[in-house]
């Protein structure tokens, strides 16, 4: 049913599902790099798992897991330079954390707190998650146009899911990348499902990568569960973009091993057998297998990693849970550069309401 997760001709891949090397690893990818990639994917998987647990226990709101797609975000994050810009959708936790977004911030966003978008450092100019589907792609094109107009050697990475490719917004943005030769790399996370609609019911094309043909940019399909393939494709495309040679559409073929979000129940619309089969292509497992088989990863290292990751995630969760609430008028204060007269009046009204409600509660407790 789903797009082949196997290696098929034309799809870029270096390490296959069994952890075998299919072709010589590209420059820059050595054992240390592979270990670092593996470690990051394990971190993200643990964060993801914890986020779902927090939602299930009423400590966080709806959350979109990235289970099974960790290689995509990790490969992108490792390929980007600090001065590139990331325009993410909502399943790019792995890239965001590599760019310095803290795990606490990831939890804050899905815990319903805008302060989770206060990125600093490398990510300070990155966009926040785009929840409306595909709309971020034209922002990315605009960012790329700004880079081009300023003559800087930078590039933008914009991500979306397979579902987003059904939207005009995505085509329009890619079309502009083609006609203006913009320094933009679009990565489609083809996790095969737009909530309940399989890729086969979303488009009549054989691949998503071939949509690049219609807009005159480079397009390729990569094994999205192979972090090396994603890294190599994105790094190559970014280098090209920075040289002024135009944009690239990368289809990273993967599989959404989780529900769409914690509000979804994928058992309603897809077979358990399909999901079970997709686990055979797990991006984390294959890299572990490769490292282990080549003698570069020991059980002791694994134990140490899991302990470190547990500590890091637990600390993020603790920071998230213990963060004092925002000031109540924060939701009014940032609408414009300065609060306008109508908003100032509405803020005053809010504060009066809150005082009234607090007094009413106090009154009740006195009465008890």
């Amino acid at each position, binding site marked *: 049913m789903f797009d082949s997760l196997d290696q098929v001709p034309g799809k870029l891949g270096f390490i296959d599902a069994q952890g075998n090397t299919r072709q010589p690893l590209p420059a820059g990818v050595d054992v240390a790099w592979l270990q670092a990639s593996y470690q990051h994917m394990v971190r993200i998987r643990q964060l993801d798992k914890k986020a779902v647990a927090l939602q299930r226990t009423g400590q966080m709101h709806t959350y979109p897991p990235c289970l099974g797609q960790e290689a995509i975000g990790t490969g992108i994050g490792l390929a980007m330079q600090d001065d590139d810009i990331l325009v993410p959708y909502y399943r790019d936790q792995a890239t965001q954390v590599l760019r310095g977004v803290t795990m606490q911030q990831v939890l804050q966003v899905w815990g319903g707190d805008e302060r989770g978008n206060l990125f600093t450092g490398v990510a300070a100019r990155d966009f926040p998650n785009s929840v409306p589907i595909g709309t971020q792609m034209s922002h990315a094109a605009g960012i790329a146009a700004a880079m081009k107009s300023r003559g800087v050697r930078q590039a933008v990475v914009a991500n979306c899911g397979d579902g987003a490719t059904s939207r005009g917004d995505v085509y329009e943005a890619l079309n502009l990348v083609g006609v203006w030769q913009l320094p933009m790399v679009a990565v489609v996370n083809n996790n095969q499902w737009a909530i309940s609609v399989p890729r086969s019911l979303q*488009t009549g094309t054989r691949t998503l990568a071939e949509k690049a043909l219609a807009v005159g940019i480079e397009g390729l399909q990569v094994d999205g569960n192979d972090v090396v393939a994603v890294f190599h494709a994105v790094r190559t495309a970014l280098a090209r973009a920075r040289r002024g040679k135009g944009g690239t559409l990368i289809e990273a073929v993967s599989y959404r091993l989780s529900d769409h979000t914690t509000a979804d129940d994928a058992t309603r619309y897809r077979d358990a057998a399909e999901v079970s089969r997709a686990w055979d292509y797990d991006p984390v497992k294959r890299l572990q297998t490769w490292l282990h088989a080549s003698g570069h990863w020991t059980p002791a290292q694994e134990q140490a990693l899991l302990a470190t990751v547990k500590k890091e995630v637990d600390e993020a969760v603790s920071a998230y849970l213990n963060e004092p609430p925002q000031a109540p008028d924060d939701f009014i204060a940032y609408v414009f550069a300065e609060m306008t007269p109508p908003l100032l009046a509405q803020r005053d009204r809010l504060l009066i*309401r809150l005082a*009234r409600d607090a007094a009413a509660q106090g009154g009740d407790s006195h009465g008890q």
Partner: protein
Amino acid sequence: MASNRRATCKDLQTHDVTLVEAVNLALRRALIDDPDVVVLGEDVGTNGGVFRATLGLREAFGYKRVIDTPLAEALIAGISVGMASQGLRPVAEIQFMGFINSAVEQMLCHAGRLRNRTRGRLSCPMVLRAPFGGGIHAPEHHSESTEAMFAHMPGLRVVIPSSPTRAYGLLLSSIRDPDPVVFLEPKRIYRLVRQQIEDDGQGLPLDTCFTLRQGKDLTLVAWGAMIHETLLAARELAQQGVDAEVIDVATISPLDMATILRSVEKTGRCVVIQEAARSFGVGSEISARIGEEALLYLRSPVQRVTGYDTPMPYPSNESLYMPSTADIVEAARATLETA
């Protein structure tokens, strides 16, 4: 019932349903009664809709009549215009109102004016359904109340049910209406109460407000999920000896001002309650019309209880944004104390 030629004895079952189940029941009834009705949207088929409004319809009516579309709201609205022009009765779902915006061009520039620009040669009997409103701790862009935007567009009806009974009757009338209808479902109260509904295919009128509670002291005007807080406020006011009339606008556009004016002429006091942003909303229109047409009956200025002129906050601060029962009671008391 006897006047409804389509209903058969077998169909006349009474159902104990929530608002979202009433939507499902009305869709089912429309699909049975009219072979031209088609249901379409994202995840409406196999998944039965993310809120389960279309649950079981695919199994009952098949792929041709219950259609999973690609993820593209402009497309969903646009193909509905095309289908409707050819005599189908598309009932399209937008998954959340926050995602309706790319469909706006189709609704404003095409659905609402196809009849007018072809001088009646073509028409657009489509329904665009969307769950709307906040209060369920949903992610960003899942909690908007932008009904005023559509009410401002010529040629579109805007309908908002606030109970299972009205959801059933108003949706059936919307589907049968010869013109495009934006049908907004208050998802916060999708499962709040159950009502007995006889599946008799009877529609409710699309041109009248519903007076939910008679009262002589002041008029409370609301719609959608805010009806819940408004009725609670009326009860609280009653305990204070204040007799409030409660009007559910339900058919936002075209607006039945006659019912509201009759009430305000009786009570002389009015509070309009909306979850939407404060400025330029449906409440502003109602308040302005009262000023134009019933000023001399007013014993105090019309009050509005509303959301804020801000994006809907992320869930942590959502409750700060939402109008509360206490806000409505307070505004009601203010109208009583003014004169």
